[in-house]
């Protein structure tokens, strides 16, 4: 059997990957995918701990997170489309009209 710690390390790696992706990547859709990666890393962590503890809370949590992620994806893609319609690009560098 694969030890729990392997799952946790994989989840932590995915989470970090997603986090750096959000901070570094310039394409809105890729940034969006990175956010999903972070949510799924949290899911994997929940499941790994649920398996370790042997109760259902973690499994149920994962389902809730999947449902929420789907809702978030729909609103996120709608916003990306709105941005594309008003500017013709989804590059984050060009989405910057407000001055600081």
């Amino acid at each position, binding site marked *: 059997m694969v030890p729990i710690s392997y799952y*946790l390390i994989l*989840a932590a790696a995915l*989470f970090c990957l*997603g*986090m750096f992706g*959000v901070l570094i990547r310039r394409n*809105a859709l890729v*940034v*969006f995918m990175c*956010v999903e990666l*972070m*949510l799924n*890393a*949290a*899911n994997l*962590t*929940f499941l*790994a*701990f649920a398996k*370790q*503890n042997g*109760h259902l*809370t*973690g499994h*149920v*949590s994962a389902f*809730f*997170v999947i449902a*929420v992620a789907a*809702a*978030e994806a729909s*609103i*996120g893609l*709608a*916003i*990306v489309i*709105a*941005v594309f*319609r*008003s*500017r013709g690009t989804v590059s984050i560098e060009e*989405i*910057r*009209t*407000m*001055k*600081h």
Partner: protein
Amino acid sequence: MNLPNLTSADFLPLLPAIILVVGACILLLSEVFLSAHSSRGYQAVLSTATSVIAGAVSLTLLTEPARAVFLGFGAMDPFSSFLTFTVCVSLALASLTAAGFLRKRGAERGEFYALMLFAGAGMSLLGLSNELITLFVNVEVLSIATYALTSYLRRGTRPSEAGFKYFILGAFSSAVLLYGSALLYGATGTTLLSDMSGPLRAAMANNNGALVYAGAVLVAAGFSFKVAAVPFHMWTPDVYEGAPTPVTALMSAGVKAAAFVALVRVFISVGSGIDAQLPFAIFSTLALLTMVAGNLLAIPQRNVKRMLAYSSIAHAGYLLLGVAALFVSAPGQEFKLLGPTALIGASPEDVARVDALRGILYYLLAYTFTAVGAFGVVSLLERREDEEKGTAWDLERFSGLAQRRPGWAFAMAAFMLSLAGIPPTIGFIGKLILFRAAVDAGLVGLTIIAVLSSAAGAYYYLRVVVYMYMRPVPEGAHTLERSWMTELALVVSTVAVVLLGILPGPLTEWIAQAGTLFTR
């Protein structure tokens, strides 16, 4: 199959949220029967009425005893009922503001108000949440509705840009919050906050401290994004500027209040399991940075909407000072929970803690009245035509306002004084209660910094007053359209700001009930 045995007492605290959701569904359905040219003025009235009814119900819940509901997944206490009331106040005022705002732009739609009410229901439920996944789901309910509201106006580039930034950073912070919750679940084996303190102590004893600390820090970081604490504030000015003004009002008041209440609830539980030093260190540092940076960054702003965004960051800093005061404890001393019990015979630390809790609640309500009112005046002055040029919210707009619209100018002056914390306004009383609680808790140094930075803040608030009362009306100023609904919101918030500044007694007595928090 084992079904949980739920009684009507479990559903009682959900009543305000249920009312808000029903109102939202009616508003959504009303769109089915309306053509593009039908009159939609009543939608704002309906939305306001729904919020007022929900707010009245939450007031009656304030006297209910604190207890766990839904098998411990929710906590019904005066704390959450008071939050619901604050949220309903911000919803009602923001709906009234939206009526004038949307009519001016020809963008009146039922879904705008419906989304506001859905967000409000999410905020109310977030205050009740006493379990990590429930908490996450409610954070998302309110956030997703707010993302949609932010990019609601489709003309122009700003709303979609603001919506995009808000969405990316909001989703990012939710993911951080969730990952932190997953780690806390791993360390304790439970997601119920009220069951957490024992397993947390066991985890600390079994050398699982790293997991607990990482989880707590990530959860704190996730919340810091939501309440716009420095250094997690980068999104705030752009989003607040680009969002439709009534939505900005709702974000600065309701969303922030709900996030603060959830944050307090999580960390009271987490802090009781681990040493309270960790949350204290986190929140006092955040408070220091947020107060100072928020005020300093607001000073050079000539764009009033953006200035109010930085001011909202600064106010989050004062609230974080109150949160830090909750976690003051001597090293090694066990952090005691604030039970729903009476405070007779309680230690001075406990009394200071309850005072800090009350201070936070009072301040949230004070800020709600003031900020929503200030954004209401901003929404009356702006025009869509100037938005792309970026002059819609320029300070020049306020020149000579006292001669053109004395009522608006008086209201704005009251809001600015309240934000600056000058008597006789509700903002002054709020700061007084909060800062006194912080001093009682022993945070003298931080409180001095808070007072000094709010004195610096007076500069940019009073500058608006100076422009309104001491500058001539600029040549070729466009006519100012009136809207009775927005003006009604201004009247209500001005009366609240001034009256509760002169006579704070009734409200403080009433909040004395709300300062108790369900913990076990």
